């Protein structure tokens, strides 16, 4: 029994050190970042496109727009393919095949970001430059690369969401004479809607945090992109490009960018949670 007390104390110590470590990061980032936002002015920081550290100007709007454009683009591409994948694997493919294909999708998640970026630079960027114009390093290139990268995330959550729909719903629909496809569109997707939306939101959360692949294919220009073919700089790329040499206020501004990302991702996570909770509520209906 005494041993149990010792173990319990040990585990408490471990848990406290973990919590301490994670709290340290959060506090550190906020302590470095928030004062500079207040110093520059909340409006100037978030709504100005003027980012010029040597002149002390820290407006991150063009990078916020950049991040959002690229993330939405990635979600648009990701959603199409992920949804198709999830529907096919749960409804229209033989169980052996789907069991074999699921780990293959997880494989996509394991490929390093730099490999995606590299393949994108070598194959996708010249294609865009040649056929669509512009430098090739663009919002489009970043969206496509990111879309592929978040595919596994969206797909696995979507599969969970689809599989959670009670079989009785589907069987009922078929019994009423609907085709399987009609069942999918009119029953399955509607019942799983919240879970699917949560999947996309979480995919977007992953996309917005991506750094290396984006640096390689997005062009990193400071202007707000005026079209899909224009180069773009995201919040994460900005941090990565400048953190090596930033000091003083500049470095604090990068932490402030980190705070911004933290806030955006927390928002997305909370939204995904709220949306998926609604699904559970709906299912309680008889």
């Amino acid at each position, binding site marked *: 029994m005494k041993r149990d007390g010792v173990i319990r104390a040990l585990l408490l110590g471990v848990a406290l050190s973990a919590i301490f470590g994670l709290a340290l990061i959060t506090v550190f980032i906020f302590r470095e970042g928030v004062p500079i936002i207040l110093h520059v002015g909340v409006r100037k920081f978030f709504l100005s496109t003027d980012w010029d550290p040597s002149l002390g100007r820290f407006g991150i709007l063009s990078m916020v727009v950049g991040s959002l454009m690229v993330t939405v683009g990635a979600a648009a591409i990701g959603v199409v393919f992920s949804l198709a994948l999830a529907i096919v694997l749960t409804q229209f493919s033989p169980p052996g095949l789907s069991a074999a294909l699921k780990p293959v999708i997880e494989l996509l998640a394991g490929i390093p970001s730099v490999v995606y970026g590299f393949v994108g630079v070598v194959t996708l960027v010249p294609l865009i430059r040649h056929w669509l114009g512009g*430098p090739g390093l663009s919002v489009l290139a970043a969206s496509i690369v990111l879309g592929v990268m978040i595919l596994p995330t969206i797909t696995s959550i979507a599969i969970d969401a689809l599989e959670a729909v009670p079989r009785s719903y589907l069987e009922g629909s078929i019994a009423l004479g609907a085709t399987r496809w009609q069942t999918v569109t009119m029953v399955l997707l509607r019942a799983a809607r919240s879970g699917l939306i949560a999947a996309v939101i979480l995919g977007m959360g992953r996309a917005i945090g991506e750094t290396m692949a984006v640096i390689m294919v997005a062009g990193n220009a400071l202007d707000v992109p005026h079209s899909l073919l224009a180069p773009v700089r995201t919040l994460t790329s900005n941090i990565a490009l400048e953190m090596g040499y930033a000091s003083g206020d500049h470095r604090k501004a990068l932490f402030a960018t980190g705070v911004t990302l933290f806030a955006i991702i927390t928002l997305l996570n909370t939204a995904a949670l709220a949306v998926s909770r609604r699904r559970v509520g709906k299912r309680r209906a008889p």
Partner: protein
Amino acid sequence: MVGRAHAGTARDGATVSRFACVFLAVVGLCAGCTRTSGQSVTLLGSTSIQPFAEMLAERYAKEFPGRLVEVQGGGSTAGLQAAERGLANIGMCSRSLTPKEALVFTPILIARDGLALVVNRNNPVADLSIGQLRDLFAGHVTNWKELGGQDGPIRPITREEGSGTRESFVRLVMGKERISGRALTQESNGAVKELVKGDPAAIGYMSLGLVSQELKAMAIEDIQPTVENVLAARYHLVRPLLFVTKGSVTPAARMFIDFVLSPEGQAVLATEGLVGLR
């Protein structure tokens, strides 16, 4: 039941003590090793100087086996900060120091380097004036045909803010004008080179010593970007390459610096297209 409990506690004890051993071993490994700042030399900074420093480091290691020199990139400003905070023994900086910086750091000139304006090999434009360059990078001139080339958009490529190459470019060409927000940003000489290699409409600036056959370096104000022209101070865009230190230098670092400034070290730099001190 009781016996099993005893066996359980014995095995628990073994696990815990095994874990403790591993933990202590790791701590011991950390505590036992010292910062290697006494033995090896670390250089950090300019991506323009980096390849040359690497070459010098390899030659140095060959001449004096066992003397290790570590070279890392990051850009000139990062190099200065690394020297300041002790992250590196020597900071590599490819621009001259500002007055404020000169109060803190000790610069050592190791060579001079031309700043080349590079375009794709297929670009017919072969020379520009400094004024044209300035307009181009500021975004006032946006089509190659305005500069005597083929009709098509100009894509300027710039370096990140902490880059000594960029800072030198701004001082020598841009003056008061700001570089256009449209310019693509790359974080090293090599990345600029790769981009210009692949894009016929691109133009970027980089270390003259790192230009290769695959690119075309433009003449500026009708002066060709050659080592002779840089040596003779005819070529307009020249910047210093510095090893920067703060405070006292470790003996190992001093030995390496002496090597770089020696005739042998300078010969290595000269063969690679840098302009030596002699």
